[in-house]
């Protein structure tokens, strides 16, 4: 019982890990706080579920979900890079609009996928359990992402997230890089959404709420656990973080917390993790302030 629950938790960590890689790409590589994710995750789920429920090929559904995620990211990118709306607001606008779009796609608030052919069932025929399948997808995605970040475009993308003046003076259009990064990231997020819908057996309009924060928590937890510098390690960190995050939730639930409390806990976790450096400097300032009288100005 416990064992199968644990396996289920790890499977969740793996499948949401693809989303965490997407969040890593925007938040860490591109340094762009992209909230589109809360909309593109259910978008991927909606597109795949709609196609599967209508008797379509589930692989086709996953492909279209990826394309839809790409488009969602592109819209946020255009809002920000071309129309000069702030990054946060651009994401919020796309996310809000996507709520309506997702309802339109699904035609109702929830699509059940029980006893429908899914990609997970398909691989199941060949003896591939969900976690094996997710691991394969996740590792392929990770390796592709790592390799991409070592190409010329990957360099340009990373430089854009680091210091926009540098790529621009090297002849790179930072606007294009933002569009590219956002669409790639949201493609990954939508892929994750499409697989989650098939894994849990339904798509729901509300399933996107809190996705960004969960992804961010995974990236941050992973960063804290995998403390090796280098690109390959950072993406591995996001994956490990995603699994650890799901395990932590699992533990919290077993300790008797209500599932409805989880978002609060996740948010608090992320706040603590993000504010670590500033809390530290506030504390140091306070200490310095205390013995200020003894300070003699020096050069």
């Amino acid at each position, binding site marked *: 019982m416990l064992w199968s629950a644990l396996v289920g938790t790890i499977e969740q960590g793996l499948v949401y890990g693809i989303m965490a890689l997407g969040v890593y790409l925007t938040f860490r590589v591109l340094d762009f706080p992209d909230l589109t994710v809360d909309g593109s995750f259910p978008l991927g789920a909606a597109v795949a579920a709609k196609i599967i429920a209508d008797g379509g090929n589930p692989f086709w559904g996953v492909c279209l979900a990826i394309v839809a995620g790409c488009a969602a990211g592109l819209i946020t990118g255009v809002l920000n890079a071309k129309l000069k709306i702030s990054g946060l607001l651009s994401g919020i606008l796309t996310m809000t609009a996507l709520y309506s779009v997702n309802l339109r796609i699904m035609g109702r608030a929830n699509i059940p996928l029980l006893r429908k052919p899914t990609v997970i069932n398909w691989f199941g025929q060949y003896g591939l359990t969900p976690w094996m399948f997710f691991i394969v997808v996740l590792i392929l995605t990770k390796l592709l992402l790592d390799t991409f970040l070592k*190409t*010329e475009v990957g360099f340009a993308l990373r*430089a854009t997230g680091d210091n926009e003046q*540098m790529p621009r003076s*090297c002849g790179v259009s930072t606007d294009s890089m933002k569009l590219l990064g956002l669409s790639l990231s949201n493609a990954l997020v939508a892929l994750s959404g499409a697989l989650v819908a098939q894994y849990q057996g339904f798509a729901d309009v509300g399933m996107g709420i809190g996705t960004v924060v969960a992804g961010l928590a995974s990236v941050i937890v992973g960063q804290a656990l995998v403390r090796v510098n280098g690109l390959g390690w950072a993406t591995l960190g996001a994956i490990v973080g995603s699994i650890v995050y799901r395990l932590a939730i699992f533990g919290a639930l077993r300790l008797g917390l209500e599932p409805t409390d989880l978002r609060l806990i996740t948010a608090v976790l992320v706040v603590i993790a993000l504010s670590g450096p500033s809390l530290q400097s506030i504390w140091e300032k306070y200490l310095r302030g205390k013995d200020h009288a003894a300070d003699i100005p020096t050069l």
Partner: protein
Amino acid sequence: MLRISQLCKIFTSGNGMEQTALDCVDLHVGPGDFVTIIGSNGAGKSTLLNAVAGVYGVEQGRIWIEGQDVTLWPEHRRAALIGRVFQDPMIGTAASMTIEENLAMALKRGCRPGLRFGVNQQNREHFQELLSLLDLGLENRLKEPVGLLSGGQRQALTLLMATVSSPKILLLDEHTAALDPKTAEQIGELTRKIVASRRLTALMVTHNLQDALEFGNRTLMMDRGNVILDVRNPRRAKMTVDDLLEQFASLRGKRLLDDRALLA
């Protein structure tokens, strides 16, 4: 090489106040010219360099580089023709990327980035050769993030990055001002060396009047958006800092108590 005609740049502040930063500037810089630019704070020196680099559009006038009208080109497109070093050593490089990754991007300046690997072994040998010219030991630190370097080392790297693909024009905006005197001198020497060996056309803004006369072959003095003095060698070779100050005072039309403080 660089031709600027009737270039005007007006900044409008939030409350609608207009500030003319460039007032119909005409300038022609021939190939191989190394021009130093001096002028008091707010004279428009940085604005001139930024306008050439395409950081912002201009209200009026045209800019040609090697005969091409680049006035409407966006900054990243002009970057194919222009190398830049900024006053702030942090701006020219990407701190989280390694030395070789930074150099690789500079080497590809102006080419559309593709899906090839960003650095290969051949690049590495080339980079090591280039870095050894700096004499800072960076040739053995190719895989270290640039964020670990000192300001002077980063500025040297930026200078190398700005010149590695032989730009048509090199723009230097007080690129030694944020460094300690000794490092500033080293970067200055390096600038001289690189510009000479690659026969670059360069514009260098400086507040050091001595440097302004010692570097390059031509000196411009700017004031309130205008070029008020333009001297070349051999006339320039005979000028002293005091001559420059005198010129400044008379061209500005009034005797200022301390021009030296104003210019420097």
